[in-house]
């Protein structure tokens, strides 16, 4: 197999194609537009469905429709567009229709900007929209990992009949990295037993999220919760890096996860025993492995490109407040900045590059409940 340079957005698109995507519906929004543009020629070339929708709301409901027919359907967007999909996502989850969503996050709130961000963590891990459920949320740190996760996302979606979200940010969407692409999968046209195909010689099938009776709707919810418990049991993904002897633990996901990796290396060079815990599945959050690791370290530093959203999960799991470094609005933490934010300072003062007159870094760094309370 060959390794080629791929732009993140295009690599994700191609990975979806190779994973057997039958239909794509989307709406342009920076920084994910290349996904849509790439698919606008690639899907028709393979005789598959590509359709630019009139809006994100249109797109998610087209996906809902195509997925109801048992097809591998997906859409992609970025933060404001994802907000518009919240109702549709809730319907999809409640109807137990499998589908895949890619969110290439950008700066918010509001129109914000088009720079990278991780501020959809809450929006995606805490039930997209109303009601009780969590999408299965996967957060790659490299283009290769994005491709690998995209490759299994439809399988996961169909296995659990659930919504699978690939959560990345503008950096991952826009950057190029070497990628080994999986081969194009040819899927037999096997219609799942719940799909709408026309009621030929069988009773009709309905796909709905309406359960008028409270007991019926509680029944659906108990079924969903049971499914989520299963997903939580089987689908936790994470990476630990140099944690074996770590005294200080950094927790970071996605792009920040890879930056933190550099920070770990830098800190190690300076003699600090630092490790990295990088959740890959954000829901289910890899709670047990983190809880276990947390017992062996002296301090935990969560780093995010948001105001501390994953931090809340980490605090809940480790049972107390943690240190936090957050950059927002498209500002990207540097490895140096992360090292500097580590609570325990190295004994020896170490020379460090990169302090030549740059403006002082604004950041949130704290150790209390207050703003996240």
């Amino acid at each position: 197999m060959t390794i080629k340079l791929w732009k993140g957005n295009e690599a994700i698109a191609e990975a979806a194609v190779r994973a057997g995507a039958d239909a794509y519906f989307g709406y342009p929004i920076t920084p994910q537009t290349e996904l849509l543009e790439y698919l606008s020629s690639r899907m028709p070339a393979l005789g598959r469905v590509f359709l630019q929708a009139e809006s994100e709301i249109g797109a998610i409901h087209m996906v809902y429709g195509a997925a109801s027919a048992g097809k591998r359907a997906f859409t992609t967007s970025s933060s404001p567009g994802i907000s518009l999909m919240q109702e549709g996502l809730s319907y999809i989850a409640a109807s137990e229709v499998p589908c895949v969503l890619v969110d290439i996050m950008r700066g918010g709130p509001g129109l914000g900007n088009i720079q990278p961000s991780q501020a959809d963590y809450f929006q995606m891990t805490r039930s997209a929209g109303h009601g009780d459920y969590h999408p299965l949320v996967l957060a790659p740190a490299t283009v290769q990992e994005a491709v690998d996760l995209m490759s299994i996302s439809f399988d996961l979606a169909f296995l659990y009949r659930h919504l699978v979200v690939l959560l990345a940010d503008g950096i991952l969407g826009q950057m190029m990295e070497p990628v080994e692409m999986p081969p194009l999968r040819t899927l037999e046209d096997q219609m799942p037993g719940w799909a709408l195909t026309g009621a030929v010689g069988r009773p009709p099938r309905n796909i709905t999220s309406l359960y008028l009776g409270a007991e019926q709707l509680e029944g659906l919810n108990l079924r969903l919760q049971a499914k989520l418990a299963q997903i939580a049991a089987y689908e936790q993904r994470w990476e630990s890096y140099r944690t074996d002897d770590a005294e200080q633990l950094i927790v970071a996901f996605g792009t920040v996860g890879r930056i933190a990796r550099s920070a770990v290396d830098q800190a190690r060079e300076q003699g600090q025993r630092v490790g990295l815990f990088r959740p890959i599945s954000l829901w289910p959050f890899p709670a047990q492995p983190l809880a276990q690791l947390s017992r062996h370290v002296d301090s935990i530093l969560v780093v995010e490109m948001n105001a501390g959203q994953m931090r809340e999960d980490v605090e809940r799991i480790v049972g107390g407040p943690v240190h936090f470094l957050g950059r927002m609005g498209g500002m990207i933490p540097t490895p140096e900045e992360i090292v500097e934010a580590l609570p325990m300072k190295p004994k020896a003062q170490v020379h460090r590059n990169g302090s030549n007159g740059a403006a002082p870094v604004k950041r949130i760094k704290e150790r209390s409940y207050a703003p996240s309370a």
Partner: protein
Amino acid sequence: MPPVLERPIENQTNNGSPVLEPVYCFPDSLRDVHTHYCPGCTHGTIHRLVAEVIDELGIRERTLMVAPVGCAVFAYEYFNLDSCEAAHGRAPAMATGLKRVLPDQIVFTYQGDGDLASIGTNEIIHAAARGEKITVIFVNNAVYGMTGGQMAPTSLPGQVTSSSPAGRNPAIQGHPIHIPEMLAGMPGVAYAVRRSVHSVAEIRKTKKAIRQAFQTQLDGLGLSIVEILSSCPTNWRMDPAGALDFIRDQMVPVFPLGDFKVIG
């Protein structure tokens, strides 16, 4: 001439009278369940017409329905078809998704006026602009029936509703919206008409239009839509017969019946 089923279901002897043949039976495309519609509500009438057309065209096993949010929210339980339930107003988008991946199936939406002409206007207009080969059964009863009779964009000038207690004032709340007229101008739309179910004669015409709308889809000509003026005795606070008169006397003048576009 009464509507006639293509295939008489059974012959039977009735009280010793000569052999009687069924001319009017329960359609295959409906399920024999009790509906939750109010007495005299013409949603039921329209359900039957759609089911009869599907039966007559012999397409029951390849027809998919997209139900709306509105009083017809349970339509998927009443039709004997594969079907799904869209979010409020989004049925045309969901139908687009279905039809694009299953181009040989027949896909139709069944939508109320709040659903299609208010929250879901964007979805119907763009399905029409794209020329989606779907059929839209658009039930206009001039109110939000399901939520208790609030004003709809189709409510009549002066109409008192639970959210226009002084009567709809066009100067403040605007004039009723005319969907088939609006869609007729689009090349993607192949069939756009308005009918009513306020009398036996009109019901028969409505059935013909529904049939032609499905035929339009079978012929792959573009989007077909039949707006049907329908009653809501409950929220109009009328008896069922009075509600039909209201359609005839009040609604038809505002929503003229007719063909706005017929291709093929």
